């Protein structure tokens, strides 16, 4: 019994300590933002790695998610004679929820894990140490551009996901199932609100971008410099950032769409 309590205490304390470390780490990294602005090249190179290389998976997943929404939505709505509202259903689901959330989960798997592994390997091969000895702060030179690139890329990827998804829903709904073209778009436009829905979706994906990238770079920097340590850190990045995204999604949804 006492051992159980001790285990719980140990777990809580080490979790809190990690959280504290992650926060201090973030503070130092934010000190590198001026450098990133001065040398935007560093950020662009990272935007390539986290953004451009994620486009394909985001595009394909968005298309399929939109097509499935079109199919499922139609089957449900047609029973109520409300298949004209298919556009609304597809667009609102994507813009408010699926766009930001699914693209953040994909981003965690595609870009987050790569970031953790890259930084962990740089640590294990003493590259970060060598930079420090060359009077270059790796938190500013290596971590900050990656964090910034992640934060910039995430909302763009989520927007691409949603737009492609709406198109996928249109393909299935209007193209295959014969929903009226005009009704699809006009109902969508009259029910989807720019500020309430689109902007809130963008805010969500910004928050997710910060969360996922922060976890990814911290796990990489904090890893044990061995191949096993890097493997574990990569797994932790994907698991923790996915959980964090879902938890934040609930909180943000409650705050934003709670009428």
């Amino acid at each position, binding site marked *: 019994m006492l051992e159980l309590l001790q285990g719980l205490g140990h777990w809580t304390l080490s979790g809190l300590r990690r959280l504290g470390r992650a926060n201090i780490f973030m503070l130092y990294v934010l000190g590198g933002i001026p450098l990133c602005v001065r040398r935007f090249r560093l950020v662009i190179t990272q935007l390539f790695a986290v953004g*451009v290389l994620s486009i394909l998976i985001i595009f394909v997943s968005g298309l399929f998610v939109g097509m499935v929404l079109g199919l499922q939505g139609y089957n449900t709505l047609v029973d109520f004679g409300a298949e004209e509202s298919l556009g609304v259903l597809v667009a609102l689901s994507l813009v408010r929820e699926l766009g930001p959330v699914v693209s953040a989960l994909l981003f965690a798997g595609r870009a987050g894990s790569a970031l953790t592994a890259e930084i962990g390997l740089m640590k294990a091969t003493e590259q970060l140490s060598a930079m420090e000895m060359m009077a270059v702060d790796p938190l500013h030179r290596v971590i900050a551009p990656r964090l910034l690139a992640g934060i910039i*890329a995430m909302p763009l990827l989520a*927007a691409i996901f949603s*737009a492609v998804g709406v198109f996928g829903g249109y393909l299935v709904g209007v193209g295959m199932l014969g929903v009226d073209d005009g009704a699809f778009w006009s109902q969508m436009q*009259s029910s989807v609100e720019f500020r309430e829905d689109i902007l809130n979706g*963008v805010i969500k994906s910004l928050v997710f971008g910060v969360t996922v990238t922060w976890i990814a770079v911290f796990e990489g920097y904090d890893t044990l410099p061995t191949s096993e340590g890097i493997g574990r850190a990569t797994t932790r990045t994907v698991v923790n950032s996915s959980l964090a995204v879902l938890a934040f999604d609930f909180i943000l949804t409650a705050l934003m769409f709670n009428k």
Partner: protein
Amino acid sequence: MVEYRKIEILVGAFVFAGLLALTILAMKVSNLTDFGGGDGYEVKAKFDNIGGLKVRAPVKMAGVQIGRVAEIGFDNKTFQAVAVMKIDRKFNAIPKDTAAKIYTAGLLGEQYIALEPGGDEESLKDGDSIVLTSNAVVLEQVISQFLYSKAAGDDKSGS
């Protein structure tokens, strides 16, 4: 440093695609273009019962959307619901004696206000009220009326 130029071009394309997607979402998917902000004039209408009418519900005339419900309030004296409609400035020649009705799009669809034009020379201006209103059709009322009249009819034929 391998072909930094190529990287730059691809990143440029990525950012462009992202912004384009956002623009599509704003223009084609949502209603940023129409009835956003304060571009329009407000007209009030009082209803005995607004049913399930919500703020942001469409205001239509001859089936064409001309505005939105901006606000729903309650009149403490007449115990009526007050719906404030924001009508786009383009539609500035709506007769003063226009009637407002609350309809439902489809059996379970969203409710909206339909305006039926009268014959008055003068047109509605900002702050005006629509006097002629008819209430939302509440499904339960329709059903109970139907049942009641049916029962009454059965009674007559039976006696």
